[in-house]
């Protein structure tokens, strides 16, 4: 990108330049990130109904399927969000590689969190997990005993395999790490940083991550422990 000395040529040029810029790409990442965070919270709240007995989830799934505009609207928004989120991650990662071709012999991080330094690992691992998760519980190709519509039964039979449960638990730990940094980082990216609010936002990020990790992990563990049957 050349230096921005020329007058701006119309709205289209402005949009392209915004998306060309590192800040523009990070804003895309933050906005799509917020959509995805909203979804994973809603997704967990829905799934916690698994604790209300063997039928609750099936009824819930039935209800979602009876509202095609809601279901497909959500799916399309999520697909676009994940796509744009990955697009900005990939383009920025290329930039970072170019920015430091020669690394340090010794490098000692001073304050940064492990989570913040591994965003470009936790993110792609989540992407792989999302694909597996959809093939496992939504379409069934990755689930040997899958029965369409029997959501509760699919879940219980799926998680009774300790390897399957372990992969879900691992993925949720990745999600927790990604959001431990991501949920406050997205505010910083769009320009919200204030001595009064930023410490609160970091606590919020920790709380959101803890809720998502504990809530989600409790389900495979409960299945393995025989609490959910």
């Amino acid at each position: 990108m050349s230096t921005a000395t020329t007058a701006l040529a119309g709205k289209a040029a402005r949009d392209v330049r915004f998306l060309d810029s590192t800040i523009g790409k990070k804003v895309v990442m933050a906005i799509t990130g917020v959509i995805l965070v909203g979804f994973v919270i809603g997704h967990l709240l829905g799934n916690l109904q698994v604790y209300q007995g063997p039928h609750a989830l099936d009824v819930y799934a039935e209800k979602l399927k009876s509202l095609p505009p809601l279901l497909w609207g959500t799916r399309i928004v999520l697909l676009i969000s994940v796509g744009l989120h990955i697009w900005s991650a990939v383009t920025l990662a290329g930039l970072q590689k170019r920015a430091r071709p020669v690394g340090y012999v010794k490098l000692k991080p001073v304050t940064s969190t492990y989570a913040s330094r591994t965003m470009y690992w936790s993110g792609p691992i989540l992407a792989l997990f999302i694909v597996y998760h959809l093939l496992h519980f939504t379409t069934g190709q990755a689930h040997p005993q899958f029965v369409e519509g029997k959501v509760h039964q699919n879940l219980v039979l799926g998680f009774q395999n300790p390897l399957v449960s372990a992969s879900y638990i691992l993925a949720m730990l990745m999600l927790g790490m990604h959001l431990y940094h991501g949920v406050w980082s997205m505010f910083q990216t769009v320009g919200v940083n204030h001595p009064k609010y930023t410490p609160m936002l970091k606590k919020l990020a920790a709380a959101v991550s803890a809720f998502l990790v504990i809530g989600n992990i409790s389900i495979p563990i409960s299945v393995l422990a025989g609490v959910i049957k």
Partner: protein
Amino acid sequence: MKLTLHVWRQKNAASQGKMERYEVEANEHMSFLEMLDVLNEELIGKGQEPVAFDHDCREGICGSCGFVINGVAHGPMPGTTVCQLHMRHFKAGDELYLEPWRASAFPVVKDLVVDRGAFDRIIASGGYISASTGSAPDANAVPIPKKYADLSMDAAQCIGCGACVAACPNASASLFTSAKISHLGVLPQGEPERRERALRMVATATAEGFGNCTNIGECEAVCPKGIRLEFIARMNRDYIQASWLQRQESSAGGVG
């Protein structure tokens, strides 16, 4: 005290460098650069090439000095440039690795010296105010509330040493650029060009080959002048507004 140093030696920009091992006898009253002076005296005495490092004021205000000591830009003491780092913070037998700032936008000139011309070009692209100032105005002719004066002064502390880039895993110049955008932008004199300034300086930083910010915070931790991440958020705000609210020049008002 006896120290073992591993120093990045590189003849010039075109040559391959490598780490070389040296032993040096220092005392706790020396500054880090004085310790290197002692090493260099010895090397010169032996007919070898002294270790090149940038320095000028040696009192922590010019921004010339700086290299990475054991993986931390400007070494282990917070808020301190290497010229102000004292040997009393080290102990006999310590093994220290000295490396230049690493970024493609900061090519190595020689040993620990890098070319920070990219910073000058970022400033040249927008880090100024184009008002005609005449003779020096009265100090308080433009009243500025203390909190804004303070904020501007905090940002103006930046000495452009480059430690932020060196410490950033993405070799991003966001902390530097944001400080240079903010110290002008918070004052009334800098306000008219605030948006254009953000657009130009951010674009120049990317064009120079610096990476993007991922809000890691290592820059803030090593900054000898305490520049805060808050300024990066401010830069992002200015940039976002600039991108979406910028108007074209128009002659409709009769001044075209």
